[in-house]
């Protein structure tokens, strides 16, 4: 039996080697995405799959988050007579944090796990080997298009989630909390700044990269059989979700420091 120090040492080495492998993989995908040749058809196909097909789930999540946020802020604010801050706090919370984080987490489940399962299945059915024998790099043909598509579509989805989330807050405030519609919207537009929106969109680009890289990485490393593919999907979803939350904190701290 190993002593605890050995176990800790082994786990630490394992963690660092995993981080190293992931970093090398991410570097290769980024290299393939930044240099020709690009597969335009594949990029478009992935943009539809990652972006367009995620619209319903992102829209629904955003409207409910916005609505719940408005209710909670109203409830908390009413204790200090600060109900009038509902529009400003809703728009700030949605644009800087909740819109992008919720979209990221939803896509970690829908997209990252989907990519991992698809690539994992391709790995175990020898389709990736076939790709290589046909002189097509898997980094260029499979991974770079997904990476590029996620980088482009995530900010668009987040911008839409921001609008829908704010409208969710507006719906509850106007029809449930007796706010005046015009005043609510004017307060929202007066309070939100370009920096608030920009902060969310910058995070969206990073989260897009995380979602695509984690899906491709776990799929590429998938072990044989249904269990291996299932495990790849689970690991990609969990890994992407944890990294999104960690990067969100780091970037929020950085944005506060630089005044964004």
């Amino acid at each position, binding site marked *: 039996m190993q002593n605890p120090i050995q176990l800790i040492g082994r786990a630490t080495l394992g963690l660092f080697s995993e981080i190293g492998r992931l970093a090398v993989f991410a570097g290769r995908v980024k290299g393939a995405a930044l240099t020709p040749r690009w*597969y335009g058809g594949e990029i478009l196909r992935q943009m539809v799959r990652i972006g367009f097909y995620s619209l319903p789930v992102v829209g629904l999540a955003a409207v409910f988050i916005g609505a719940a946020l408005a209710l909670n802020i109203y409830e908390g604010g009413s204790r200090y007579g600060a109900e009038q801050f509902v529009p400003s706090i809703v728009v700030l919370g949605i644009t800087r944090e909740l819109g992008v984080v919720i979209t990221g987490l939803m896509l970690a489940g829908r997209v990252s796990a989907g990519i991992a399962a698809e690539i994992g299945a*391709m790995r175990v*059915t*020898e*389709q990736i*080997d*076939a*790709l*290589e*024998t*046909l*002189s*097509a790099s898997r980094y260029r*043909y499979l991974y770079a298009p997904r990476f590029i598509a996620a980088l482009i579509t995530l900010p668009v989805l987040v911008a839409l989630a921001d609008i829908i989330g704010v409208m969710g807050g507006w719906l509850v405030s106007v029809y449930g909390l007796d706010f005046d519609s015009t005043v609510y919207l004017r307060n929202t537009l007066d309070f939100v700044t370009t920096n608030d929106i920009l902060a969310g969109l910058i995070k969206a680009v990073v989260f897009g990269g995380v979602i695509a890289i984690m899906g491709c990485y776990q799929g590429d490393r998938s072990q044989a059989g249904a269990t291996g593919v299932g495990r790849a999907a689970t690991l990609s979803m969990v890994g992407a979700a944890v990294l999104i939350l960690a990067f969100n904190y780091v970037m929020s701290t950085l944005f506060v420091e630089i005044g964004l």
Partner: protein
Amino acid sequence: MTHPLLRLEGVEKTFGRNQVLRGVDIDVARGQSLVIIGGSGSGKSVMLKTALGLMTPDKGTIFFDGDDVTQATGKAREKMRARIGMLFQSGALFDSLTVWENVAFRLINSEGMRRKDAKERAIETLKKVRLGPDVGALYPAEISGGMQKRVSLARSIISEPDLIFFDEPTTGLDPITADAINDLILEMVRGLGAAAVTITHDMASARKIADEIAMLYEGQIIWRGPAKDVYASGNEYVDQFVNGRAEGPIQPAL
């Protein structure tokens, strides 16, 4: 002086504690059809993937057309693979592409051919493997296992390679379809004048398509000779294998 098209010298490959290849020496000449037989777990697929550059050997050297390609990467690897076709055991057709797009994949994505021209070539090649143009528009999931093998065969020959690898081409097929695939392999290989390396444990297939047969056992080539001599090899391992006997020096993989 002529050299073999493909030559493996002392190739070794280990996974963890399992040494799969223990110094494989083998060569294939232009136009020659070599069949490698061997039981499950004897290292046939690993040898094929190593020869293709999908795995890097731990030791040994691989020569393709006289060039050392053991550690080849990038353009050198692509140049080699452009001259090689491969039929995978599972077919390995891309699910998301139609049959004709699968067949024309190399032409469109590696050689940069226009889709319209590539489609014409794919339909012509499908005809060679007895599949009509209507099949071209279907997806792999919509056709039978035998048809998938034929599509995979069409994909492996479309760019007229110098060397074709066949990984268990008849596994999972009924005897009639398997024989039809053997006929197609012979026809395609002879028609192209290509060298062929086939790994199989189907002896009917081996006898039909091989000029020479080699047997891989515990990661080494233990016998090689003309296909007609395989039933009189004088090697007890080969005898047991080709006659399908449970008793003998080879322990069944149970």
